[in-house]
């Protein structure tokens, strides 16, 4: 424990770097996956192609991706951009399917009635389909967030610093406390991100709260009637 206190400054710095590396791929992954998922949902032909390709992306070993990307992007080996791009690719791999499922979860009758009352296709996407796909999108983003926060560590193997450094250094020094510190810090970040996503979802989708409340109220009423 004394090691933790002695190195609190370095741990904090690594934590901030870790967070800094995690946020861009999560955000970019979302922004790129939503249109791809919509296309996959909208056009049957594209669905199988997009979902297969995005599924395959996830099978690329991260280490090899880190090594190949500098050649493709023209970045240096130590550039954090490599890690961010790699993580974005994984985020898309996970998220395109969720986004397609999310748009698929919108009741056809609601989509049809929105059209019937005079929404244009563009307006309907923003005002009806995107918000109603929201709960499934949030569920998908929670997986993406957890996966990104844990995978970022691998970047330390190629020298892009993050909490992963504590794993490598701890392993080299056969020092368990350092490894455990890395694990705990990673988990804390993942949990905070997860809570933030859930909170954001509740804030942006108040109707999901109230329908849960209404269901509870109805359930309570049934219990009273039964009693």
């Amino acid at each position, binding site marked *: 424990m004394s090691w933790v206190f002695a190195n609190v400054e370095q741990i904090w710095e690594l934590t901030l770097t870790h967070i800094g590396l995690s946020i861009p791929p999560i955000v970019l992954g979302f922004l790129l996956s939503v249109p791809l998922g919509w296309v996959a949902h909208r056009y049957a032909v594209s669905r199988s192609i997009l979902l297969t390709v995005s599924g395959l992306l996830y099978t690329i070993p991260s280490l090899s991706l880190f090594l190949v990307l500098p050649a493709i992007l023209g970045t240096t080996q130590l550039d954090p951009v490599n890690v961010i791009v790699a993580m974005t690719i994984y985020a898309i791999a996970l998220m395109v399917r969720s986004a397609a499922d999310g748009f698929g979860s919108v*009741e056809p*009758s*609601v989509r*049809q*009635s*929105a*059209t*019937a*009352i*005079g*929404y*244009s296709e563009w*307006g309907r996407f923003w005002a*009806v389909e995107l*918000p*109603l796909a*929201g709960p499934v999108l949030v569920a998908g983003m929670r997986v993406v967030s957890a996966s990104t926060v844990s995978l970022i560590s691998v970047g330390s193997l190629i020298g892009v610093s993050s909490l992963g450094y504590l794993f490598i250094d701890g392993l080299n020094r056969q020092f368990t406390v350092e490894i455990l510190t890395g694990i705990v810090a990673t988990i804390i970040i993942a949990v905070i991100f997860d809570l933030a996503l859930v909170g954001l979802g509740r804030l942006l*989708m108040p*109707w999901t709260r*109230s*329908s849960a409340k*209404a269901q509870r109220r109805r359930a309570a009423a049934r219990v009273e009637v039964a009693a």
Partner: protein
Amino acid sequence: MIQFDHVSKTFPDGTRAVDDFSLTIPSRQTTVFVGSSGCGKTTILRMINRMVDPTGGSIHIDDDDIATLNPVTLRRRIGYVMQNSGLLPHRTVIDNVATVPMLTGVKKSAAHAAALDLLDTVGLDRALADRYPAQLSGGQQQRVGVARGLAIDPNILLMDEPFGAVDPIVRRELQQELLRIQSKLAKTIVFVTHDIDEAFLLGDNVVILRPGGHIVQAGSADEIISAPADDFVADFVGANDGKRDLTVRERNGRRVAVDPSGRIAGVLRAEQPSDA
């Protein structure tokens, strides 16, 4: 006035849903399409706001050929009420009612004020304004659906089996409510149902359809019941099976009409009921 001229619709899979349909729907009256499922009644209704485009023939609203109108603009001036309300589940009652006016550029405050008035019109408590559709009963949702259909004060209101999914008691309430609203607002209502009693109750004009959108008979309830065009209609309206037969009986010295199940349907009077 809505005018169908030799309209047909063949879906991409080859189904001919509507075959050479011609009809003039008068303004400011309720016209009901009635028929069993698959008769094309919903397809015909949806052609009016271009949810479905015909593959043959033409449809005019007043003097406009609707094929030349922008579908989105057209839909924004035609009220639409569907089964299961079709409300947006993520919008509150008031927002649902105010949706279309706001799409057409009405300011939010004005749209909300008008929406509250409409809740009164359809007999809903204003306290429900901030609820979400899932928090309402089926009947209440349907009333919100009607309010939303009326929100832009359209000349034409399309109603696609709007009361099909609510229980019989609520359905009767909603039907009476619609009659009351219509007597006040006098919209051109086109209503689709498979319930012949509903058709007779609500329709100034009833159009009985056979598969393919073929008109078997069109006319007022009186005309259809008293002179069914053929056996199909007679069966459909229940004129053949004795369901609508009333027999006159003597009860306690008064002459009463008795329905087939033996219940008294009413008392006969000697004088003509006044038509005023």
